């Protein structure tokens, strides 16, 4: 029997001014990514200049929230957790955690869907963080 997912205290992220909308959307269960108005490319993490063409014309877009595991690793020291990169169906790959599952069943290319977990703890709650859980079937 391998390790199953356990809730873990996630570090509270520092909120930078240009990411206010991102964290507000996260609190409503929405994952935002940036899309460039000039070159059309998506990027992650979000910036004020498109990292692909350096245009300053970028827009927030709500991602579908689905993707597949690009790679992962199961940390077995302390509370076990799975860090991963997920490739969003829009294209960008993002660092995340895989949650709410038997962590020993994970594999590359597995389909996943975004699920938000709150950072911090009860006494000091932080923003909601985009994690991913395997999609059944």
């Amino acid at each position, binding site marked *: 029997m391998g390790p199953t997912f356990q809730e*873990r205290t*996630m*570090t*509270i*992220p*520092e*909120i*930078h001014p240009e*990411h206010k909308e991102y964290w507000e959307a996260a609190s409503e269960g929405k994952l935002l*990514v940036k899309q460039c108005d000039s070159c059309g*490319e*998506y*990027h*992650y*993490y979000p*910036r004020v200049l*498109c*990292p*692909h063409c350096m245009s300053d014309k970028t827009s927030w877009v709500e991602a579908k929230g689905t993707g597949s595991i*690009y*790679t*992962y*690793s*199961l*940390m*077995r*020291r*302390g509370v076990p*957790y799975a*860090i*991963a*990169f997920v490739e969003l169906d829009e*294209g*960008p*790959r*993002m*660092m*995340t*955690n895989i949650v709410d599952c038997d962590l020993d069943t994970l594999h*590359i290319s597995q389909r996943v869907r975004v699920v938000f977990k709150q*950072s911090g703890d009860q006494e000091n709650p932080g923003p909601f*963080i985009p*994690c991913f859980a395997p999609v059944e079937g």
Partner: protein
Amino acid sequence: MTIKGMAYIAGAFEHPTRKAPDKSVAALHAECAKGALEDAGLTFADVDGYFCAGDAPGGVLSMVDYLGLNVRHVDGTDTGGSSYIAHVSHAAQAIAAGKCNVALITMAGRPRSEGRSGVKQKLVGANVPDTPFELPFGPTAVNEYAMATMRHMYEYGTTSEQLAWVKVAASHHAQYNQNAMLRDLVTVEDVVSSTMIADPLHKLDCCVVSDGGGALVIVRPEIAKSLNRPQVRVMGAGEAPKGLLGGKTDLTYSGAIWSGPRAFEEAGVTPQDIKYASIYDSFTITVLMQLEDLGFCKKGEGGKFVADGNLISGIGKLPINTDGGGLNNNHPASRGGIVKVIEAVRQLRGEAHQKVQVENCDIALAHGTGGGLASRHGSSTLIMERV
């Protein structure tokens, strides 16, 4: 402008300690500086350029003051464990530009005494742009390199047994190094049956956590020729930071694909000319991936290349890390780059342990990957020759 032939590595010193609870980090820097200057036959008064990175407490200002230096050129470039390999290049550039004549590079740290290791979350400062999108997920040194390993296995069929050969080679070399932290020979079976830390990396895929440090002295050619030491000349260097590429993330290669060709071009040599290589070994995967990216084998064939003792001096085609490397000898301050240059200098001088000394070692390479393989890392390549 080129740095080829413009500077020599005149002094090299690796601190013998691997555990230093009774010494400050600054004191270790000072002892390393003294050791490297004595090795070169120079004094603190001769130093007019100073180089250090993030391990140096208080940075260049505190260290220059503490060491009592009177310098006219300083450089605090920090690209993690690869910093010191870049510093050799930067020192050569500064010497070529007339900014200094005798450059001192120091590094030291005490992660072992301070209880830091690669399974703990990294410490980072405020306002770093990437951290809000990474720190909540618990990235550490080991699980980052593990993610790169997992993808490499998926794309190229690399196995844990192949990776284990990197550690086997390190242990083979370390048995002859009296100062090495780990000196016992291990087998492939020992590595793959050791505790799993972060899948697919086992405990023995990870480098040691050691206290210590090292220093280098880089000098103008005329000065090197006036000293009573074997002459090691800088031939070429390359640098390349690599990150997550705005989401076009690819964890199957390192910045060595860029820094390597730059160094080989400047040096005017190819991977086939390299008799000995110091290849950064924070983890076994680091070695395998760098060897591919530097062109010692084709992409995806690193597993086959490192297997069956190919990295062992006297047995394989490419002897690497003959001091035992970060995996067995030393990874001071969790930044191993300076030790990589030091062992390459020993090999070029013919001063490596006789059991691991490479015959006719006239051209050597040192390469470092500093930082996170699955986030941002610096890659530095340095090629040197015995004159």
